């Protein structure tokens, strides 16, 4: 590598990947399609589209059957997915599952079909908390698991469940088929219907022990997932800003377009300020985690806390600037609005990550 200076910009290959994913989504998962899947409560067409393109393998090394690239590529993909408010839950769950599995010996090999999109594996943890806390609700007796894990992302429709159970200073990983005797998955309906959630009930379910993950490795995986959520919120927020600028540029009141009012311009400019800062933080964290830099995990926490909150502030300003039309079911803003609200809570809110950061800064 003939690297001569510090560089922030994306490589040509990364730009191409971005454009390729963007074009594919526009072609096959436009807002009309997303709306149709949401109203029909059937996200399978998108899962099949992702499987055909093997997107679960983007950012995963070729040596384990992925498409190559690293976390920067994966982060880019999630930003683009967010721009399209695509039903990306299974990709997110998949990233978590792969992250856990790839950090134990032969872990990825044991998850047949995941990278090719032939199998969907849900990460059986409460999606409202950091994934590295594991499923503390589940008891192990011999090789049998029992307990109730609420709010598991993409549990409905999953073919397998990866259950990380807290053990001293790490997580024990267990794998079980979603249709095994003693498994019951009760769907939960969230306001954001582009993602599936369910409570997982386990009663004496026979499971396979995959291995043991140290605490730091689990934190890294959680940081990766948090970062991907942040990137997705950034993409959604950028789209909402674009929609807003376009709308206020054609909506006329008092004889002028409302976008010429300073109050409106300032609101839009404030959004841009936050999103550019989020962009800096997200891609720095992707690089730092990918390269194993010391501050990678912390920067991912910061990105999650800042970007998901900033996206919600964007959503509320976008709603205000659209006037009443933005408050309707038929306007697309609602899809993005609900998504960024959910992302704020997914994997733990900003408060959770700021508390972790305060701990790392040794405030007491």
């Amino acid at each position, binding site marked *: 590598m003939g*690297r*001569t*200076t*510090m*560089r*922030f*910009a*994306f*490589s040509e290959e*990364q730009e191409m990947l971005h454009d390729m994913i963007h074009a594919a989504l526009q072609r096959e998962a436009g807002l009309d399609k997303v709306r149709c899947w949401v109203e029909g409560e059937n996200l399978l067409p998108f899962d099949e589209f992702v499987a055909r393109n093997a997107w679960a393998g983007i950012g995963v090394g070729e040596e384990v059957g992925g498409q190559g690239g690293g976390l*920067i590529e994966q982060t880019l993909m999630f930003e683009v997915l967010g721009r399209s408010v695509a039903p990306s839950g299974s990709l997110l769950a998949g990233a978590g599952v792969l992250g856990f599995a790839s950090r134990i010996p032969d872990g990825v090999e044991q998850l047949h079909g995941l990278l090719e999109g032939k199998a969907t594996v849900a990460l059986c943890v409460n999606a409202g908390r950091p994934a590295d806390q594991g499923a503390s609700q589940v008891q192990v007796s011999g090789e049998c698991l029992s307990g109730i894990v609420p709010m598991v992302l993409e549990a409905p429709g999953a073919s397998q469940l990866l259950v990380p159970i807290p053990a001293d200073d790490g997580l024990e990983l267990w794998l079980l088929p979603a249709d095994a005797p003693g498994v019951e998955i009760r769907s939960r309906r969230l306001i954001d219907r582009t993602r599936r959630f369910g409570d997982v009930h386990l009663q004496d379910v026979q499971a396979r022990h995959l291995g043991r993950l140290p605490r730091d490795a689990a934190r890294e995986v959680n940081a990766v997932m948090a970062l991907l959520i942040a990137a997705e919120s950034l993409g959604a927020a950028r789209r909402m*800003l674009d929609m807003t*600028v376009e709308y*206020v*540029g054609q909506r006329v009141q008092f004889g*002028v*377009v409302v*976008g*010429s*009012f*300073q109050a*409106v*311009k*300032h609101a*839009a*400019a*404030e959004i*841009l*300020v*936050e999103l*550019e*800062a*989020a*962009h*800096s*933080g997200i*891609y*720095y964290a*992707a*690089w*730092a985690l990918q390269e194993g830099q010391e501050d990678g995990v912390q*920067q991912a*926490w*910061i990105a999650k*806390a*800042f970007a998901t909150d900033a996206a919600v502030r964007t959503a509320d300003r976008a709603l205000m600037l659209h006037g009443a039309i933005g408050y309707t079911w038929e306007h697309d803003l609602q899809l993005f609005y609900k998504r960024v609200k959910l992302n704020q809570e997914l994997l733990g809110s*900003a*408060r959770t*990550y*700021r*508390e972790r*950061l*305060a701990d790392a*800064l*040794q*405030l*007491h």
Partner: protein
Amino acid sequence: MDFRDSRVDALFRDEVRTWLEREVPVLGQAPDRLEERVEWWRPWQRRLHDAGYAGLAWPREYGGRGASVLQQAIFYEECDRAGAPDRLDVISAGFAGPTLIEHGTSTQKNRFLDRILTGEDLWCQLFSEPGAGSDLASLTTRAVRDGGGWRIHGQKVWTSAAQVAEYAILLARTGEGERHRGISFFILPMRQSGVEVRPLRQMLGGAEFNEVFLDGAYVPDELLVGPLGGGWKVAMSTLGYERAAIATGRVNTLRLLKELIALVKNTKDPDGRALGQDAFIRQKVAELYGRMTLQRITGKRILSTLAEGGAPGPEASTAKLFITPLVEDICDFALSVIGIEGQEEPNDADPARARWLRLAYQARGTSIAGGTTFIQRNILAERVLGMKRD
């Protein structure tokens, strides 16, 4: 995407660090009064110059080192780390010099640039007027033809360091053209009759900026910069350098956060509990720490674009709007941790406390200088987002 120093840059960083570690500790405390501080600073600047660190990113032909903007940034990072003296030549070497390199005649370059780098001449900026602040193009100071030069009549205001400056960059009207047309950009020698500097007390009591009354001050033709009546364009590049300097970090926010954390660790609440255990305080510090890292990363992002010879993207326009409230929030929070004693007039008894207070007030100045926050938002909305002018 890569944030590590290249091999060459890493070597440069080592070199600078070693040099600063040897030179900085023997300097002692900077005097408070600006006039004394300038005299204290000049020998330091001379040593920087002799060691080849003045005008790092300036071209070699103008006395610089021709280094990359990244090495320039590395140098300032290391200065921050070593606790080197604050720069007093921000206007001369940061704004005026680069403007002359871009728009000046070769005579002007030969005459002024070297003395800027050695610290012999400090400069000030005579742009704002009582009636021309955010709307700078409405300025009314006039340049009237007199033989081979111009006589300047008018009043300037908010002029930092005018009392110690040898020269000023000056905007004045030379023609009848509307607004932007008819403005010319001059170099004004400050030490002459016809230039009167009156200090202005700021809200905290200090006098760092001034009013400058121009009553027939003389500028010869050879000190006109750029075309006659074409001064607006020259001024815009000066303001660009000013904003870039603010955005890429004239305030060392990392150091502020370290000091804030130390302050929190050393403070107890009225009931004697460590403040660092308070949930609200912990949230707030973490939030500020996070924003600080985002601001610094954005600074690197801007530099990396400049280093590749590209035009700065939207991040450069947003950076000032991100750092300004950040510095205000950090300082305000520190003062709230200190409590009512944080509102005591700065004194020698507690220099750390006085510094938070000064910084908190200075930050308000930064949100106004170089284009107020509200004006910057207009610019961002119109030029970056393409929204309609009103």
